[in-house]
């Protein structure tokens, strides 16, 4: 917790599928998922999404703030993530850790995470615990009262997080932390967002106050409540707890746009702890929500997702380079929950003695096939099926963390959480011609970054 996750954890949420959501879905494959929801704003600008379903007595609450590590202060790398940890410390009315004590001590689960474009705090609790959880989230939004000792404690915790996930791990940060740093030009997209340990140490209570006052304001956040609750009384509780928070200016956003690369790049790094070399590629993703973007998401499914995908069949099964190939759009989440520039990445760990260029040639030949030959109807249907099946699991999950993630992302980035009910139809509108055109336009060697990780003892450490 209090960390950004590694992709394995995101996958875990999908492996725990299930509960009942009021979705209408029939055997008819053209039927669409429908999540009933309500969306409004308080006078202070707080966005609110309510998605009721009373079939199981649990409720999920999430607050997403529109501040991610992408735009953290330039001299304070890792600060957005450190700040996430601090939101679990003292507030005006709660001692250090008391919020978690309330949630877990009443049978709930809570966590937080920091991503490129948001930081979130979320809980799933038995539904009779909803009222205190709403109060706690409002308290965090209005009354952070961090002590110097808690700041120091969480710096130590975060540095230990970086040690366990990066510094003492082979392939630590490969490629999720390393690839954006070498593939991007704009500092906002290209810095070490886990943080240099020196920057983490340098953080002051003054930095904390400024960041909190700037970004942790109602107009920069969305509250999502999903699951078992009474809509009318929950709206009253939200008005009571969050309504009195003063209206504050929505923060200015810097220019995070990323210039399109004009020539391909190959970057080599060394990892003294790695026993085998590894290889990753990154390609810029088309703008979020554009028609090209939908086709691109489907291309990811066709090329990279699952053991039926083209790259798996070629690189893993036919060539035997690796026991698997991983990747996707936005390694720290999904195509949906990122607003700014992101990469489509693929990566694998392979044996010594096989050159990265040979593997890259095979990657290129798989991509060339989708550029030159239209995808058949069955393969396109399969890619849509993957999306549909995953959506059902997101919507039907027992924690609903995936559901609130989509609703919050669509509210924060698009001001329209009802997008969730159009996802399937927008993907179904994509044609084989679209896929071919988008593959030709975006999957070219001239925009690709190749990151080669040399395995070796005695070589220099990979900069996280």
């Amino acid at each position, binding site marked *: *917790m*209090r960390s*950004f996750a*590694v992709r*394995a*954890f995101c996958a875990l949420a999908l492996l725990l*599928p*299930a*509960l*009942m*959501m009021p979705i209408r*879905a*029939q*055997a008819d494959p053209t039927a669409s998922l429908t999540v009933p929801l309500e969306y409004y704003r308080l006078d202070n600008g707080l966005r609110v999404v309510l998605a009721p379903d009373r079939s199981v007595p*649990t409720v999920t609450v999430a607050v997403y703030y529109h501040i991610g590590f992408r735009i953290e202060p330039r001299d304070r790398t890792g600060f957005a993530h450190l700040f996430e940890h601090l939101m679990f410390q003292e507030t*005006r*009315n709660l*001692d250090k*850790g008391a919020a*978690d*004590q309330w*949630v877990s*001590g*009443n*049978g709930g*689960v809570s*966590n937080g*995470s920091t991503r490129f474009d948001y930081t979130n705090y979320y809980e799933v609790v038995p*539904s*009779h*615990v909803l*009222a205190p959880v709403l*109060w706690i989230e409002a*308290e965090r939004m209005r009354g952070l009262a961090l*002590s110097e000792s808690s700041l120091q404690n969480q*710096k130590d*915790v975060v540095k*230990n*997080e970086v*040690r*366990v*996930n990066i510094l*003492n791990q*082979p*392939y630590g940060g490969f490629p999720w932390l390393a690839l954006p740093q070498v593939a991007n030009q704009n500092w906002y997209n290209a810095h070490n967002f886990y943080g240099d340990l020196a920057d983490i140490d340098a953080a002051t209570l003054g930095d904390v106050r400024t960041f909190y006052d700037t970004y942790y304001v109602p107009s920069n956040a969305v509250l999502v409540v999903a699951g078992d609750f009474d809509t009318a009384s929950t709206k009253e*509780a939200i008005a009571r707890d969050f309504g009195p928070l003063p209206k504050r200016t929505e923060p200015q956003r810097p220019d995070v746009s990323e210039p399109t690369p004009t020539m391909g790049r190959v970057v080599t790094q060394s990892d003294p702890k790695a*026993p*085998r070399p590894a290889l990753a590629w990154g390609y810029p993703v088309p703008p979020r929500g554009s028609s090209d973007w939908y086709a691109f998401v489907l291309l990811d499914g066709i090329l990279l997702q*699952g*053991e*039926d995908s083209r790259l798996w069949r070629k690189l893993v099964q036919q060539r035997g380079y690796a026991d698997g190939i991983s990747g996707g759009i936005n390694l720290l989440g999904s195509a949906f929950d990122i607003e700014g520039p992101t990469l489509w990445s693929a990566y694998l*760990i392979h044996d010594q003695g096989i050159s990265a260029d040979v593997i890259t040639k095979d990657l290129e030949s798989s991509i060339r096939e989708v550029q030159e030959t239209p995808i058949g109807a069955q393969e396109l249907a*399969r890619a849509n*099926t993957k999306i*549909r*099946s995953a959506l*059902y*699991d997101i919507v*039907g999950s*027992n924690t609903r963390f995936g559901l609130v993630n989509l609703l919050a992302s669509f509210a924060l980035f698009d001001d329209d959480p009802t997008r969730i009910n159009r996802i399937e139809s927008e993907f179904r509108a994509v044609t084989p011609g679209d896929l071919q055109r988008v593959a030709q336009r975006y999957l070219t060697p001239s925009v690709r970054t190749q990151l080669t990780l040399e395995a070796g003892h005695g070589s220099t450490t990979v900069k996280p």
Partner: protein
Amino acid sequence: MKRVARDIMRGLMIAAAYLATASAGPPEAAERESPPPIGVPRPFTLPSRTEFRLDNGLRVTLVPFGTVPKATLYCIVETGRVADHDRPGLADLTVALMKEGAGKRDTAAVAALAADMGGSLEIGAGVNEISVGLDVLSERTSEAISLIADTLQRPRLPAAELPRLKSDFARAIAVEHAQAQGIAGEAFARQLWGDSPFGHGNPSDAELTQITIDDIRAFARREFGAGRTHLYIAGRFDALAVRQAITHHFGAWRRGAIAQSVSPHSNARHSVTLIDRPGAAQSTILMGLPTIDLKHPQYTALSVANGLLGGSLLSRLEQNLREDKGYTYGIGTQLSPYLGISSWTLATDVNTVDTAAAITEIYREINRLRTEPPDPAELDRTKRYRTGHFLLGSSSRAGLLTQLSFIDQQELPLDWLTRYAERTEAVTPVQVTDITASAIDPTQMTLVIVGDLSRIRTSLLSLPELQDATLIDKSTEPSHE
């Protein structure tokens, strides 16, 4: 969210929670507000299951559940690494090869069919089971049954794919051996369970090399059969069609030989294994011991004790080592039931300079719980956390099947699940202390520490808690590779 899940930590690092600790209160502390009161819990009952057996012995459990149009199929065969015998790695290589085509379909056709159904075929080997899982859109449930039947009854096991899968296995082992947690886990299992399928760890290169395609085919012939297989399905499905599909696709399968489940046996003694990882930024600590089995009358009390000590982020160890001292990003303990025995284990990675101090605090917390009954309010929070977490786990297809297959493997009655909350709530502070005192004995502990020994050995060896332990010092041997 959290670290990468490690086996030892899996399942217990899900929540975040801290006890309040003393801190400099803000000036208006006297007028502080509190959260509004909680309401009245709504009831929740486990969904009911239907069970039946085919004439050949195949056991079937069906659980209609949820409103999402999906179904999860999970098939468990009673075999696994226990049947490797003199071929360590055999079960693992067999399951890898089982993905390479079945019946009329080759590898690509199997993967494509699973994807068409909205899922992917997952096959895994454990010590006492091999499992096949498939999560599909509801309307494809019968086809999914057919694909699982092919996979178990008609695996192609193509010889041509074996060298590639051996290379993959060797590469994965090399990566695990480069991770401090992987090194520690293997050494710890060896100390705890000795030279058995539970303690053996990964096969060596030589052991992998000697496995032949004939070994694998013989394993599949010998170990697979309806009489030792249990198929579970949870989700939304057409119950009649599913029953017909099961009878059609599994009815003609041979019964096969009777399964032999194996319990681990431990000769572990109080020991400290030190493994050098020069330059390591942290020390990886694993410690634990074999302990009482699931059917012991105080097992629930020990589960609660474990929860209070290190079973959630609300726990004492997490509060102390993380939230107070800042020694670690996380620390967790786990009680793992096997057949007839359990293990209690603790896992953490601590900043190198804090290694000895962390061990001292760990022992302090264990000994405190062994001697002082916990405050009832703290105990209540732990119990509510555990019952809430249990209900959350019961409200997913995968979670339900995990719980149902667990009670079947342990031969427990259904009320082990339905009365979980009742049993948990009945645990008293004195029971927690008593069972901790007898079941978590620090003088019987096995410890493995992987770290930069040049910086930690001296301080570790002077710890009073470790004076009676047998020292196994591997500082002069490179750990692997």
